[in-house]
């Protein structure tokens, strides 16, 4: 067995805002890519010895993307036993994403999950014990997948890709039918019909792609939702966390009728923070819709910050809202602790962790941020996905290109269906890669597909 001869790249450092981030590249084209994107004093990277490093700038589209160190490894003295480079740039996802983009544009392709390890294995770098460990890891991972608890965002993407795959597969089948059966056996408008529906699929994919920008991805981060009954200080918390006056703060309960979303970075993690309408029974239609959305947000939240009034009662409504979420995904606040803490809250605090805070006095904000960061850290594998997304993005781009080619062919009245069909099959292959629904060429690449990326 031999590893592929192309060059792969991925961000190797863990998510979060560390001091540095490392982007790793492996494959025969590594040094050539380094020459193309890395400016440094002295000889070109490819002229340098393995095991050396040099300071310089990563250049992308004519501008400096980042500054940092370039480490050079020459085969077989690298993790993968191939020529490799690593670029240590500034910490934070944005900087490492820019470096990755530069590398990909210079000719590498995004690594599949676990592909570095796969290459290390295939090139004989990993020994038997390590191979055993890999087996166990694959097993552990698929067990978790079976428990359906894996990875929220990846799950969402897979679903989207799965739906597109199914629709495309149906269209492909209809198109193929025109090749294998006589015209008299098929509806006369079948091809026009296929073309129309194909266009719809293409538009849908283009829409998914357009919401994919780098900034969006970074903002996509973790979803933190502030929930609770009306007038417990949810909007105040949002403003305190942001340090701005984003939400209208008003004494009248029910002021926030829609969900309000803001983005911030907490301890290096990109976070989408959502303020929701207070949960209560209401006859007001607009407010009712707000509450419905609030419930929806709470359901999707990576972290729910549930707020109660320290002087109020813990009632069934609160408990029901809290039951909807796992403990590891919930932070409970008792606000207005400067006033008085009721018996009900006190007894509740003996059973579970509740942070007492007084937002008007700015007390407890630091503790809340710390708790958010702690929880994000423990859940981090399910939150940060920019690298996986980069792979998905590329797949989507390729699939759209194929569908457009197919549409172009179908527009011709003497269309050669096998050619259009060839593009649709290719699009299916691309989409299938995201879902593991195509075995063939991605077989060995898929070997460690449930394995952490960049390693």
């Amino acid at each position, binding site marked *: *067995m031999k590893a592929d001869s192309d060059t792969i790249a991925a961000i190797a450092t863990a998510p979060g805002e560390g001091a540095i981030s490392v982007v790793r590249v492996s494959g025969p084209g590594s040094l050539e890519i380094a020459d193309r994107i890395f400016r440094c004093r002295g000889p070109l990277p490819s002229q340098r010895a393995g095991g050396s490093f040099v300071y310089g700038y990563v250049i992308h589209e004519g501008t400096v993307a980042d500054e940092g160190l370039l480490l050079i490894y020459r085969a077989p003295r690298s993790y993968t036993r191939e020529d490799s480079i690593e670029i240590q740039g500034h910490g934070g996802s944005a900087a490492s994403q820019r470096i990755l983009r530069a590398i990909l544009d210079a000719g590498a392709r995004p690594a599949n999950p676990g592909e570095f390890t796969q290459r290390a294995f295939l090139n004989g770098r990993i020994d*038997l014990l390590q191979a055993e460990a890999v*087996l166990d890891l694959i097993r552990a991972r698929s067990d978790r997948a079976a428990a359906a608890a894996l990875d929220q965002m990846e799950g969402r993407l897979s679903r989207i890709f799965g739906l597109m795959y199914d629709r495309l597969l149906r269209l492909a089948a209809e198109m*193929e039918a025109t090749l294998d059966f006589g015209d008299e056996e098929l509806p006369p408008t079948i091809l026009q019909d296929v073309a129309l529906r194909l266009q719809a699929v293409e538009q849908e994919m283009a829409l998914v792609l357009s919401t994919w920008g780098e900034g969006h991805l970074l903002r996509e981060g973790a979803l933190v939702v502030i929930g609770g009954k009306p007038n417990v200080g949810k909007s105040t918390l949002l403003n305190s966390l942001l340090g701005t006056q984003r939400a209208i703060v008003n004494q009248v309960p029910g002021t926030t009728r829609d969900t309000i979303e803001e983005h911030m970075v907490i301890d290096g993690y990109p976070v989408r923070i959502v303020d929701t309408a207070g949960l209560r029974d209401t006859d007001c239609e607009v407010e009712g819709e707000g509450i419905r959305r609030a419930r929806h947000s709470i359901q999707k939240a990576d972290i729910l910050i549930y707020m109660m009034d320290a002087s109020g009662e813990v009632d069934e409504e609160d408990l029901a809202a809290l039951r909807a979420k796992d403990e590891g995904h919930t932070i409970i606040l008792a606000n207005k602790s400067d006033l008085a803490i009721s018996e009900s809250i006190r007894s509740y605090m003996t059973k579970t962790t509740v942070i007492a805070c007084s937002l008007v006095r700015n007390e407890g904000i630091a503790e809340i941020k710390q708790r958010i960061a702690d929880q994000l850290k423990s859940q981090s594998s399910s939150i940060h996905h920019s690298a996986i997304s980069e792979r998905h993005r590329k797949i989507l781009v390729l699939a759209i290109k194929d569908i457009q080619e197919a549409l172009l062919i179908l527009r011709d009245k003497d269309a050669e269906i096998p050619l259009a069909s*060839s593009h649709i*099959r290719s699009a299916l292959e691309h989409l299938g890669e995201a879902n593991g629904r195509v*075995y*063939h060429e991605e077989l060995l690449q898929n*070997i460690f*597909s449930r394995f952490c990326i960049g390693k």
Partner: protein
Amino acid sequence: MQYEVIVVGAGHAGCEAALAAARMGATTALITLQSQAIARMSCNPAVGGIAKSHIVCEIDSLGGEMARNTDYTGIQFRTLNTKKGPAVQAFRVQCDKDAYSLRMQAVVRAAPNLSVIEAAVDGLQCHSGRVCGVVLNDQSVIQANTVILTTGTFLRGMIHIGAKQYPGGRNGEPAVPNLSLQLRQMGFRIGRLKTGTPPRIRKESIAWEKLSVQPGEEPPSFFSDEVRQEQMFHVEHCESGSSLESSCGRSGQALFHVEQSALRPWSPGWCQVPCYITHTTTETHAIIRENLSKSSMYGGNITGTGVRYCPSIEDKIVKFADKDSHHVFLEPEGRTHPDIYPNGTSNSLPEDIQERMIRSIPGMERAVFSKWAYAIEYDFCDPTQLFHSLESKIIEGLYMAGQINGTTGYEEAAGQGFLAGVNAVRKCRGLNSWTLSRTESYIGVLIDDLVTKGTNEPYRMFTSRAEYRLLLRQDNACFRMLPHAKEIGIVGSEVLNRWQRQAQEIRTEIARLEKTASQAGTLAQMLRRTGVSYADLNGALPLDSKVVEQVEIEVKYAGYITRESQQALKLQQIDSQLIPNWINYDSIQTLRYECREKLKRLRPESIGQAARISGVTPADIAILAIVIKRGEGTR
């Protein structure tokens, strides 16, 4: 007498198997219930059609007989999918069914090393897991190193007409009762399938003037390379004294073009006979609907699974209830044969209903029946118990081909038969098995699908089953098969050399077009434009038409062909990673239980094949690959 190869059954699979074996020099016996039934067209009198045509061309290029036999006995020639590009273009030829069988009989009799034995086979004789002969129904034994079963619908065949059912292998022929029972005892998984055939109607009872005509095309398109070549300078005559006829031993009887004396000089494809088209009416549908419960299929007598893509007329009316008319093609069974084959009316209704139903179709109001339609159920063997060589995994030296493997169609049968025949000989000679890959042939796709995925309905070939459709065209079959044809050695060296030379010329000319500049870009770029043909190019060379055709296609579709070639290469790579014999799936605890069971049952030959098994995930393959890699390291 000890044979190297025994072939049981002389249908389309059996004939190819026996001829291939004999032509490779193996002493071969072809056992059939009756020798006049050799290569009988039990159902439609046609060869080819979409995707099947590709198989026929591949058989021809490898040295099989089906293509030649069809071309010499064809009475109507057509090309299908003409507007859909070269990848899916296909030939379909109506044959004179008697001539087809007679010519094949003559070829079989003329073949060296090949004996035809009229007998009924009752079982196999095996010794310590290896086949060593067959047992006839008189309990006598014929010894052989290898046995190929090509039993068609004969294994416990049961014919159904309405409520009537009786054992039979085919219309008027007895079933084979014991063989499949023995196979089951040996550990083969036996299933039941169903197929059917329409009634046959007397030609003179049809009102032709009411029907639309479907003529053949001129000039006719031939499957066979030899016929295409020979037409120029040689005619396969059937006059007395010709070698074919004398070897046939039937003096005075013309072989395959009964009235050829009137057409002298005769050559293949001359004087074609048209088909006619009619259609079912609302009355037809009403008759079928009212009598559905009397059909053996809908009345519940049949348990076997039918052909989804070649449905009975009952099926069509039930499943496509919104259509109030279906086409019926009236195909002549021969030039002078008294019957026509009403394609599209296969059913298992009682005789009186068949008569009313057929007579409700325009042109057949006074139809006279010469044979009733019937459905037939038969045993087949789960093909996942076979290797890609079509040798069984359970009994060494035992091969199976055709309907016994769950396929339907003459062409599918013939392709398997040829491959099984070659492999039986190679087994005798101690050579490794010869297989075809999905990336190079439709026969390869067919066999890989069968042995990897199995089937639970009669398997028919489609172009959509092939991943690399732009590569696997019927027009380039001889070039795709060239290395195999050389290896097998049936095709004459003169022909092989011609193909070799043409292949070289094609490569050279494409390279020249790619680098020769013309007024706007290279010549290749010019040729890629719509409507431009090779002859239009400035500097076109006087190459032969086959070379020109290939150059045009390869250049015009270069982008697609390159892409598919790259994909095919990747598949070949994983298919070449063989799973070693020492593998013990039970010891790989990391594999999921379900997957372990599947792998144990199917015993895939390569990592690629394992990956194509449904339900085996990439993670399973990963584990398998690592176990093999680790095992190789320690061995």
